[in-house]
Every structure is written in structure tokens, then in C-alpha cells.
């Protein structure tokens, strides 16, 4: 009698270590079918190319050509992915948003334990988005992830992205080792690498933002020709303007008095959807709502002095 093979494959409850590589493959395939150019950045592709220390990833990062963002998003939604509610709405943070360097759209899926972070730009590249994408695309390579070809930024592109990610939040603990790792990795390449990296920085408008790394590499000094206002915002952002507390404080300082009470109320009590946006799968019980609100308030109190200083600096540096 023949055996029943109907259960030889069952829907998998994915582990994070499986979800991240499989999601790379899924997105690569969808982009291919939609004719959208994408490049995976950070994560397993950066590790494979030697631009980031080996470290488990919790999400999938990719850079999408600006004109393909909507098509890719619709393809993802047909597969059950949905846009994660932003923590703050554009209406809430009209003034602070320019310091946040809004750069990506997050997608989540009930059956996948990882997020997709679809970037339409990468903070620190101050040239226009399409110029940056075209330069990185021109230099692209491919890495096998989950036994599937994943188009990705090449070593120099990944190095720039990992470095900019580190330099954006220099106060975070993992940033300095990542920057040192990138510098060591580039030094180990052939002698033309530093010159090529400098050229990439020039084209993508990141000579100033990558300055600490370029100095570590003893790259020749060149003039930056980026918009000074963009550079100023980047510098404010580096001084902790990205922290949520600082953003709300910047916004508060710019709003008329009559709008301040409402803004304070919204800052203190986020809508439930926004509160749980980074906690997929956590039951929306009263207890969890209270716990997440308390965590936010505790974080806000801890960052309040630094936030006030950063908000003042942002205002002082206004042209």
C-alpha cells in the first residue's frame, strides 16, 4: 500500500534566521517580475561582501529606485505584506520631519517575523535620490541569499551605507566598531579602492557626511558641493535630533501656543496602532498598552536634557 505524502510540506512557522534570507528572495523575485530595480543593503549581503561584521539581522533592508516604489509596494501587498503605521504622522511633525531624514517604508506580515525596510533614499547621501540610486546600481553586484540571487550594492556602496548608518547616530554603542570594520575592510582592498570610494562619495554627495571615514582612509581632501542646508540638517540629526523626544521638542518650539496643548497630548498618548507598530504580534491588551506607554515616557524622561539641547541647536542653526 502506498504511503500518504500529502503532509510532506506544511506551512512553516518561520524562525527569524529563516525569514530574513527567504524575504530577500521573495522581494528580489517580486522586483524582477515588476521590472523594478532594487538593491539589498546592510544585512546578509553586506556581511557576505565584508562590509559589516557578522551579525544576525532582524529585518530586510533594500534601496528601491524612486520611480518603482509604488509598484513594489503593491506587489508586496498582494503577497499579504502591509505598511506599518508610522510612529508619528506628517501632521504631527511638520517642522521636525526635515531632521528625521524620512527614508523608508516599513512593511510587516503576520506570518513573517521580520520587517521589510524599503528605502527610497539613505540618510547621508545628500545628492538627489535618483543620482544616488543610479550610481549604486551602476556599481551593483549579486549575492546568493537563501540560494537565490539577491542584487545588492557592491562593497564600496555597502561600505558607504554601513558607515553612514554608523555616523548618523554616533552615540549608539555598535556604531564605532562598524565604522572601524568598514575602514579595515577597505584598507585590505587594492590601492585603487580608496580613490574609487572617494569618487563614490563625490557623486552621491557624501564627502562631508563620510568625512570621518575618508580621514581614516587618508583619502585626499576634496571640496563638497552639496546643499549647505541639507548638510546642516544632517549635523543636527547627528546631534540626536533623530530621537523621538527631540523631534517632539523641535515641533513644540515651532508651533503656535494654541496648538501646543494638543501636540503635547498626542506626544504623550500615541494612538494604539502607532504604539504597537514596532511590536508585531504583541497582543493589544490594556496591560501591554500601559507597559508600552510607560516605556515611552521613561525613555522620554531619560532623553529630555539631551533633547532640549538638540532642539535648541536646531533652532540656533536655522539660516
Amino acid at each position, binding site marked *: 500500500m502506498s504511503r500518504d*505524502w500529502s503532509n510532506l510540506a506544511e506551512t512553516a*512557522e*518561520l524562525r527569524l534566521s529563516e525569514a530574513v534570507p527567504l524575504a530577500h*528572495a521573495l522581494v528580489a523575485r517580486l522586483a524582477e517580475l515588476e521590472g523594478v530595480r532594487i538593491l539589498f543593503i546592510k544585512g546578509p549581503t553586506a556581511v557576505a561582501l565584508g562590509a559589516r561584521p557578522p551579525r544576525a539581522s532582524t529585518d530586510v533592508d533594500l534601496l528601491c529606485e524612486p520611480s518603482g516604489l509604488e509598484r513594489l509596494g503593491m506587489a508586496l501587498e498582494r503577497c499579504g505584506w502591509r505598511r506599518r503605521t508610522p510612529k508619528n504622522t506628517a501632521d504631527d511633525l511638520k517642522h521636525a520631519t526635515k531632521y528625521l531624514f524620512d527614508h523608508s517604508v516599513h512593511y510587516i506580515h503576520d*506570518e513573517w517575523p521580520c520587517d521589510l525596510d524599503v528605502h527610497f533614499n539613505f540618510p547621508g547621501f545628500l545628492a538627489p535620490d535618483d543620482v544616488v540610486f543610479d550610481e549604486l546600481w551602476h556599481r551593483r553586484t549579486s549575492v546568493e541569499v537563501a*540560494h537565490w540571487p539577491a542584487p545588492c550594492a557592491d562593497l564600496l556602496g555597502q561600505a558607504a551605507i554601513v558607515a553612514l548608518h554608523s555616523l548618523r547616530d554616533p552615540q549608539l554603542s555598535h556604531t564605532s566598531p562598524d565604522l572601524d570594520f568598514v575602514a579595515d575592510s577597505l584598507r585590505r582592498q587594492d590601492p585603487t579602492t580608496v580613490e574609487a570610494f572617494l569618487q563614490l562619495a563625490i557623486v552621491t554627495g557624501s564627502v562631508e557626511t563620510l568625512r570621518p571615514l575618508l580621514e581614516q582612509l587618508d583619502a585626499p581632501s576634496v571640496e563638497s558641493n552639496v546643499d549647505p542646508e541639507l548638510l546642516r540638517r544632517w549635523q543636527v540629526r547627528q546631534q540626536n535630533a533623530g530621537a523621538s523626544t527631540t523631534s517632539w521638542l523641535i515641533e513644540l518650539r515651532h508651533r503656535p501656543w494654541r496648538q501646543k496643548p494638543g501636540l503635547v497630548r498626542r506626544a504623550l498618548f500615541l494612538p494604539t496602532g502607532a504604539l504597537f507598530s514596532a511590536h508585531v504580534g504583541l497582543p493589544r491588551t490594556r496591560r501591554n498598552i500601559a507597559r508600552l506607554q510607560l516605556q515611552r515616557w521613561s525613555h522620554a524622561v531619560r532623553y529630555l536634557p539631551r533633547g532640549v539641547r538638540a532642539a535648541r541647536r536646531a533652532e540656533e542653526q536655522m539660516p
Partner: protein
Amino acid sequence: MTPGGAVWSRSPDVAFVDDGDRVVVLGLGEPSVSRPSLLSAEATDVWRRLERPLTARQVRGPMNGHIDPLGLGHLLEALQQLGFVRCD
């Protein structure tokens, strides 16, 4: 074509992760209807053997005596119906 003479291989439209403990595959022929699948022990055994194209006889091999030839044929056909392997 009989399974003994045909050559079986992994479908080129499948991404997978094998961490040594278990195998999870994702068919990408039609990604909008595809979901990650965890292979059973027998299917995992066959999947790992198909690292390179093999005939059913080669898939069975000396170590797979616990699956009779007819059962192996059905298993390969079931995997083919799921789009995970193909037969040339």
C-alpha cells in the same frame, strides 16, 4: 517517463534555507500565492540528496532503504506538484 530513468532536480524557482536542522522552502514561480513550507523528514532527506540532479534510483541510494521505490516515486511526484522539484 518512469521515475527510475528520469532525472530529478530542485526547481530553479525555489528559494530555501537549510540550517542543518530543518529545511524551509519558498516557491517563487507565483510569489503572490506562495507560502514558506517546512519539509517533512522524508522530503528533507530527498531534498538534500538533490543537491545535484539525480535519477530516482540514485535518490533512493543505499541509505534510503526505508522508502520503497514506489513510495519514493510518489514522494517525488508530490514534491513536483508543489513546484519544489522538477523531472527532466
